[in-house]
């Protein structure tokens, strides 16, 4: 082995704490080996996590990993953490949470052993899951029973539903069934002090799973999107909806790829959408027309999904990185477009009826359907979406070097224009990190029409080179700049935690200038020893005081721009 640079040394838990944890899970399910904790440290899709690795920051290394098998074991672990003042981070895939660290040795609670579907109630259409159950698992079991969960995440189907709860949870098909967070009827959580909280109607044991609110205040609302700050989900009950397609996905005509031929385009060529489903693509001459069409489609009451894709189709539907870049340069996919998912759920003629309405809207607004006679090669290339629209990240590729910052503002449809304009301004000012950054500026941002179009989510991203710290830092800067832009333009809150510095989450007037102070008070109630998810969402005053002065100054400057008081 070549001569080494500076090592990164992990901290360790006290032997008392370690042994107490070992007594809970047994010696086979607790690890503090150096290489094990390494695999729980460099996370993804957040530039800061990469930068800290480049800088050899020891604080990104957890001290220990523990794997509980039940709610009771999780509760025991959390109580030990309180007893010995050990900060803990609940962990599933580790794709979003960055920097699982604290100044003190930190414990990762990994839920990979809790991966069972506890029950599927076909009569009342609900499913109760352990925290490591993902969308593909739930969908496959539900589809056999003529049910499905109502949506597919804006991430891979390997997302665990418990984790999605911690982030509110957005779906590609939110148009009909609403956000994931509106499809939960109950959660069982281990609170940061070790108490167990059951929310929703299940908190009355004989009431069953029928609504999310339960008696009294909406405790689920308080926990939702808490990014793990207020507790750990150990059971989650979700609504199911009628499924009218096949029990499983049919084989693609080209057969299965092998490692020797995995990049052949024929393997990205699934058949038409599932039985009783139809996917239609439209293109428009400009963003205004696209938005007008999307508004009318969303408000018409048809379809279960309505989205626009820009640069993303170049990633999803290209076989190599080179092909992705070339398709971006050539604008192979329509700059202004949307797709609609129709489902034949109540009548054999439903798709026919809804397609008729859709065609009337497009004829009136102006737009062209991709078809066998209009850009058939583009329609052919978009085929991976045939499955992706129902089970995301199954048909597509993600040919990009590194995804390390996203702007994800929410708001009414017209905010797409502001997002696009501001993103272009940012790219022109700071420079792009990759040609693919232009997606959302030179073409449509990704637009997800949610809840019948009452609001939308927009997405534009940076793709820095993961081996170049200066590019990663630039991506981070885009994220921080984005938060300021949202606030300045009233673009609405980010719905995901890419900028997971708590004061930024309170930048938005609709949240209230001092919401962070309110949340700090709540945290004191839930987490009296301040051990849950350090560095997440809601800081204690002590944690805030430990922030570098320049960060505090930058935050307060942005708040000042919005006539908000300084963070105390």
């Amino acid at each position, binding site marked *: 082995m070549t001569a*080494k*640079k500076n090592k990164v040394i992990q901290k360790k838990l006290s032997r008392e704490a370690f042994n107490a944890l070992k007594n809970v899970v047994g010696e086979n*399910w607790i690890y503090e080996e150096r*290489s094990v904790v390494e695999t729980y440290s460099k996370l993804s899709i957040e530039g800061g996590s990469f930068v800290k690795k480049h800088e050899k920051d020891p604080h990104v290394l957890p001290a220990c990993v523990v794997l509980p098998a039940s709610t009771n074991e999780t509760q025991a672990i959390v109580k030990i953490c309180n007893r010995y003042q050990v900060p803990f981070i609940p962990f599933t895939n*580790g794709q979003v949470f960055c920097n699982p660290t604290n100044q003190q040795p930190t414990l990762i609670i990994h839920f990979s052993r809790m991966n069972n579907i506890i029950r599927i109630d076909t009569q009342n259409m609900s499913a109760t899951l352990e925290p490591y159950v993902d969308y593909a698992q739930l969908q496959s079991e539900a589809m056999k029973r003529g049910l499905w969960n109502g949506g597919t995440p804006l991430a891979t189907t390997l997302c665990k539903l418990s984790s999605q709860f911690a982030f509110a949870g957005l779906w590609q098909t939110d148009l009909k069934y609403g956000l994931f967070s509106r499809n939960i009827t109950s959660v069982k959580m281990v609170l940061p002090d070790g108490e167990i909280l059951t929310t929703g109607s299940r908190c009355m044991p004989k009431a069953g799973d029928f609504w999310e609110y339960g008696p009294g205040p909406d405790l689920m609302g308080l926990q939702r999107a808490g990014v793990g700050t207020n507790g750990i989900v150990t059971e989650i009950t979700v609504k199911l909806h009628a499924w009218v397609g096949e029990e499983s996905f049919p084989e693609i005509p080209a057969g299965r790829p*092998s490692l020797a031929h995995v990049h052949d385009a024929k393997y990205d060529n699934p058949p038409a959408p599932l039985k009783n489903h139809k996917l239609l693509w439209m293109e428009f001459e400009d963003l205004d027309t696209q938005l007008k069409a999307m508004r009318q489609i969303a408000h018409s009451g048809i379809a279960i999904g309505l989205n626009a894709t820009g640069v993303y189709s170049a990633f999803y539907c290209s076989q190599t990185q080179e092909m992705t870049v070339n398709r971006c340069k050539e604008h192979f996919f329509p700059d202004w477009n949307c797709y609609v998912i129709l489902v034949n759920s109540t009548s054999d003629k439903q798709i026919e009826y809804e397609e008729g309405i859709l065609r009337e809207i497009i004829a009136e607004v102006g737009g062209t359907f991709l078809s066998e006679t209009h850009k058939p090669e583009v329609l052919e290339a978009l085929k991976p979406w045939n499955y992706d629209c129902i089970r995301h*990240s199954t048909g597509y590729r993600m040919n990009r070097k590194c995804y390390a910052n996203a702007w994800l503002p929410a708001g009414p449809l017209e905010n797409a224009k502001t997002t696009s304009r501001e993103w272009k301004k940012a790219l022109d000012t700071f420079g792009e990190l990759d040609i693919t950054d232009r997606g959302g500026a030179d073409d449509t941002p990704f637009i997800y029409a949610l809840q019948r179009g009452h609001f939308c989510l927009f997405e534009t991203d940076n793709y820095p080179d*993961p*081996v170049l710290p200066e590019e990663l830092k630039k991506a981070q800067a885009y994220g921080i700049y984005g938060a300021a832009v949202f606030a300045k333009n009233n673009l609405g809150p980010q719905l995901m935690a890419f900028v997971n510095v708590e004061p930024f989450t309170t930048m938005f007037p609709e949240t209230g200038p001092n919401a962070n102070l309110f949340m700090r008070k709540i945290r004191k109630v839930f987490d009296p020893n301040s051990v849950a998810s350090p560095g997440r969402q809601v800081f204690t005053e002590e944690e805030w005081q430990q922030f570098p002065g320049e960060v505090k100054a930058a935050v307060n400057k942005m708040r000042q721009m919005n006539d908000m008081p300084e963070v105390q």
Partner: protein
Amino acid sequence: MTYYEKKPVKKFYEKELEDYRDSIWGCARCNWCQNQWGWNVKSAEYSEICPAFHEFRIFPYSGMGKMHIARALLEGDFDYEDAPEIVKFIYTCTTCGACEMNCQRMQDKEPLQVNETLRAQLVRDGVGPMPEHKGLIKSVKNYDNPWMQPRTQRDRWAKKLEIKDVNKEKAETLFFVGCTVAFDNTQWHVAQNTARIMLDAGTDLGMLGKKEICCGSPVARIGDRETFIALATRNIELLNSTGAKEIVTFCPGCYRSLNYDYKEIPGVPELKPKIYHTSEYYDRLIKEGKIKFKNGQKKCVTWHDPCHLGRHCGIYEEPRNVIKAIPGIDLVEMERIKDQAWCCGGGGGARTAFMDFAQKTAVKRIGEAKKTGAEAIVTSCPFCEQNIGDAMSSLDEEMEVLDLTDLMINAIEK
């Protein structure tokens, strides 16, 4: 080396971890390296695909974990003294390639290649392989086979069979027997069946007999590149010198080595004969009408895709075509098949070093096979047959493990 920097064209067996730097840093933790490809998931029970992660549940056992370990080693964040446990993580991998299959489809990165390169680095640095592998390497060096068997015993299976000795006379088709079938007398019947089927079909068949040497796959998989390259160089010269137009082999390890790995060694001559797996060859003979089956047996079977034959090399349909061509044989499929097949647990040196893990993995495959209602698991790999066979014996199951030729030999019309 940055992401879009033009990289030097290198063959796999000259690559170092540094050559994968961008890929290693770019791991997105999407977790597809542990799970079945989304549109192929048919149940929660069989939704995972990495045998090691499935068993041990922590990330260092997964493809993603290997990328993180590789990154830390590459950047000097820790070394072997700080993390001696990495040897276990890196070798508890069957090299089934499921992680690489799904990562290539999603993120265009190479977790299996990275793990095999890590193994090569560990061997070079004297940290790997596992102690259990050292005897295997020594045997390959001393006896040209991994089973510590004398060269003179290599052709004992072939007594009474009229196969040409290509050391003495030319043959159009060379049967590359492979070490395991040649030396393990419980598997001799596979070699014998293979030879009989091809001879009966009129194939001009020859073999190297005692002169055959290991293809090098076992040492390549555990990271001893030096020994592998030496064997490959000898094999290329030996096989080219026979003048055979085609080589047929039953072992997926041999097939992958001869067909793909040798091409990834810098500076060696081309292996001239065309390489076939026996299932490809049978499929061709059936289509040419040279193998005909009679009615007779009735059996419901399921096909287990050997990883190095299926996922690595794309031989999915040929063995299935052969099974479907046999009257009375009903082929039923397991949930995890072809590119998403669950590994038997026996590959990549895992069975040699971690027998319990290998057997548990095979037990899971048997459970999946039983759910199809099949009476037998049919496959075409000496390691799968050994590993699943041993697990089946320990379970005291009535289900059989059969080689593809076992089904064929009794059904062929003579």
